[in-house]
């Protein structure tokens, strides 16, 4: 009998999976178009602008105009680049971005193929996407590109660890790696209520993983002028762009599924749950855009220090407290308290980091003022003495 081993399915099921994949491509393309429009509008409002207004009502046709522009642009391949690597890199990035979505469910039924090891599968293919960025940087035969590729490797590998550890703690709470089981496990309360620290770590590390501001360090325009994407143009560049938005929405969807209860919500049940899922996921996306409009970019050393000194230890803490909670079968609020203690620790660390330089500046300024007053006083004394 014909069977595809990973999916363990018959030929008829295989047909359904192909149909599901096509539906997924369609849905994701629509979501990416909506996200580009939403980002322009939200950023515009945050910066007291209107955003796109000329193309269609409220600029709704802007994404279509953008995509036509991108496809029609000349596709330039640098003459000294490694042709094969240059071509393969965007494909690796976008294929891994699509692969992740195979097992992300919109509702209990709206999933291409639910896997028992779903969360693990997502992590495995997210790592492969990093490879594409490194190869893009190297294949461009450009120093900025190579630098960006190196930054991408360092940044994304570092932030992969907290994501994995938080996913482990969520899987321990749900006692399953199956995303549908994780959502079902949140029927009485969302994991946001018991594991707020996990949510914060997952969200921050997720931002770093898709390279959104304040973690857009590996392609920072003002430093390395686009990093791995520097030599890409036209359709090639738009493939990276597509992958970035798909990944952004994947992080938002995972936050919604793992911590905010996925498609569960009042009034709507069954397949209508997808409305709740979309509301929650788009809500997270709006927070991501809000952060982009508000925070400045970090430096690479700050980023790495934050990953290894704050995020990694705290993500291990989430696993340890979840294990203690599960092992001794304590009531749920104990985990909430333990998690909140961790969260307060993060808040204090970030606050001190942010206030520290400002305090130093204030100190130096006060010292200068005192010095100036002193010199002025001595000058006055000497002039009056003469």
């Amino acid at each position, binding site marked *: 009998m014909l*069977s595809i081993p990973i999916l363990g399915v018959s030929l008829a099921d295989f047909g359904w999976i192909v149909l599901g994949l096509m539906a997924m491509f369609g849905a994701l393309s629509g979501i990416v178009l909506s996200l580009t429009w939403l980002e322009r509008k939200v950023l515009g409002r945050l910066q007291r602008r209107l955003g796109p207004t000329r193309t269609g009502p409220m600029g709704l046709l802007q994404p279509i105009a953008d995509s036509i522009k991108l496809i029609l642009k000349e596709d330039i391949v640098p003459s000294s680049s490694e042709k094969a690597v240059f071509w393969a890199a965007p494909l690796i990035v976008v294929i891994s971005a699509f692969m992740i979505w195979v097992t992300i469910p919109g509702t209990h039924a709206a999933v291409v193929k639910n896997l028992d090891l779903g969360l*693990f599968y997502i992590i495995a293919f997210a790592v*492969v996407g990093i*490879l594409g960025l490194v190869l893009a940087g190297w294949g461009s035969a450009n120093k900025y590109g190579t630098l960006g590729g190196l930054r991408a490797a360092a940044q994304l590998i570092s932030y992969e660890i907290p994501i994995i550890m938080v996913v482990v703690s969520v899987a321990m709470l749900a006692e399953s790696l199956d995303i549908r089981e994780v959502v079902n496990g949140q029927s009485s309360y969302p994991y946001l209520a018991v594991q707020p620290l996990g949510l914060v770590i997952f969200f921050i590390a997720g931002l770093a993983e898709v390279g959104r501001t304040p973690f857009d360090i590996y392609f920072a325009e003002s430093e390395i002028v686009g990093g791995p994407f520097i030599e890409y143009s036209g359709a090639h560049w738009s493939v990276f762009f597509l992958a970035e938005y798909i990944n952004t929405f994947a992080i938002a969807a995972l936050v919604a599924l793992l911590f905010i209860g996925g498609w569960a919500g009042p009034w709507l049940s069954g397949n209508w749950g997808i409305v709740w899922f979309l509301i929650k996921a788009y809500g997270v996306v709006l927070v991501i855009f809000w952060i982009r409009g508000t925070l400045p970019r970090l430096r690479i050393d700050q980023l790495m220090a934050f990953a290894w000194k704050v995020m990694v230890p705290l993500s291990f803490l989430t696993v340890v407290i979840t294990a203690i909670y599960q092992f001794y079968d304590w009531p749920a609020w104990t985990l909430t308290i333990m998690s909140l203690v961790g969260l307060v620790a993060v808040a204090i660390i970030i606050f001190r980091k942010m206030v520290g330089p400002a305090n130093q500046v204030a100190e130096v300024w006060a010292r200068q003022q005192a010095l100036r007053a002193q010199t002025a006083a001595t000058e006055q004394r000497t002039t009056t003495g003469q």
Partner: protein
Amino acid sequence: MSWFLFILLAVLTLGGGLGVVLTRNVVHAALALLLSLIAVAGVYLVLFAEFLALVQVLIYGGAVIIVLLFAIMLTRGSEYPRISDNRQWPLAALAAMGVLGVLIPSFLINSVDNTKAQSPAFTDLANSLFTRWAIPFEIASLVLLVALIGAIIIARTGRDEG
């Protein structure tokens, strides 16, 4: 079907392996290694070992290759992308032949009945790993920890001298 898939994956694995040995460019060698390792993950899938396949993709396909590329780009490998055989190749060939000489007879002696291939449940795997095989598992993690601390010590002493 699974026979056909196996042949395809075997060709990819061996082709990737040959690519690693034959190419003169270090980064191309790393890419060929990636192809080979991913194809091995495919072989695990044919054997219904989903978890092992995903681990293969995560650890070898992702992390190891990225760290490898990272090292190549950071060192002077990128300035001298063309590698050639060095004097150790007869030794390496001897070692490879020795491993092959052990592997082929062992497969011939212990004939594997591949019709009984089945995927162990993930929870069963975890249970046996953390109960029956807990001590080997911990020893393996200890070895990794020693390697990690060793790397840090080597890196730090290098920085102090420089």
